[in-house]
């Protein structure tokens, strides 16, 4: 198994563990709904779903954690990649990648929230025949907090998508300082 296979196996195991946590978290919710709102979900149905989710959990852990090796070999078909040039400063590049990914997530959230607000607004307009001013005054929608939160997320998202140069520089400096401090303390303790 080469390094790429090991990486793929780590990622597959990570995905398996993440979804296992999500499945585990939904089990008590089913029981809760069955007891508090039996008209929505009866107890036998909840028990059936819990058993089904339990089976899914076992299958998920088996496939991703115990049989991850075979799956990784199927996913990664390339041989070992060449070592990257050690002269490349990978730390700032990694921080920039992280920032860009987070920026994309922020913008995704902004689009989602804006669509939600617009759909609710249009529903109010068409169903109740309210004027835009009335909706804001009486239904208090969209609230000032929602608007500010959306604008802030948009600003943060754009900054992060731009690579967040100040933040990356600050993080790299702090990381290198921490590495040096740990090395120093490690050497003095030996």
């Amino acid at each position, binding site marked *: *198994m080469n390094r790429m296979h*090991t990486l793929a196996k780590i990622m597959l195991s990570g995905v398996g563990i993440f979804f296992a946590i999500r499945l585990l978290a939904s089990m008590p919710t089913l029981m809760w709904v069955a007891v508090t709102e039996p008209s929505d979900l009866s107890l036998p149905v909840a028990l059936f779903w819990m058993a089904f989710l339990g089976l899914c959990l076992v299958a998920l852990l088996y496939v991703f954690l115990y049989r991850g090796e075979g799956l990784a070999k199927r996913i990664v078909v390339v041989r070992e990649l060449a070592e990257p040039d050690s002269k490349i400063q990978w730390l700032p590049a990694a921080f920039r990648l992280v920032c860009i990914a*987070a920026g994309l997530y922020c913008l995704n959230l902004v689009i989602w929230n804006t669509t939600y607000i617009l759909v609710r607004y249009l529903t109010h307009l068409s169903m109740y025949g309210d004027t835009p001013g009335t909706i804001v005054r009486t239904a208090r929608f969209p609230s000032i907090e929602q608007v500010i939160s959306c604008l802030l997320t948009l600003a943060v998202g754009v900054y992060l998508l731009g690579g967040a140069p100040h933040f990356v520089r600050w993080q790299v400096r702090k990381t290198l300082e921490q590495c040096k401090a740990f090395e120093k303390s490690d050497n003095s303790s030996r």
Partner: protein
Amino acid sequence: MTRMQTITKTVLMVLGIYGVVTLWRSYPGQYHYPDEAPVILQVLCLLAFAVLTVLIMYLMVFDNDSLCHKMTGAEDDSARAEQPALLTKSLRIGLVFTGLMLLPNSMPAMIKIPKLFFLIRPAVSDIITSRDVPNMLRLSGAEWFRNIYNLLKVILAIYLVCGAPHFVRWQLRHSRRAEPDEPETIANSHATN
């Protein structure tokens, strides 16, 4: 510790922290009218979530070596990472990423925090003059839970975006202690014997 084990450790920690946050987000007490649910169900549910949290934190954050070995499998020992610097860097990158992913979801709660400063004064004067609980504190159990959860999430997100320096330092010391002696050290000790 090999390079792959370092990456695995980081992945496990990131997943552990993010997993605990998402776990409590789906706590049914905050959506499904906790006051109507029987007390035994509330206690059992809280207990189940607490046990899951402890398990996740223990297996994925504090003592993740066994899971780490299972995920990486048998590896060539010559691939040992030269310095603990790699762990520091990868941990910080992972934790900053987790913080940045939590941050946009915590934005509405963040905006509410400055608003609290304006509400505290009238609330305190309400308590002093009427000796009664002010309206802003008259919240249901679900609302209290949501507010506390959001506040903790904001604090966690900010701490992670700052790179979680104390946590990284603690992890480095912990992994250094857990690591077996390096080959040269073992060879030296044999030579002196």
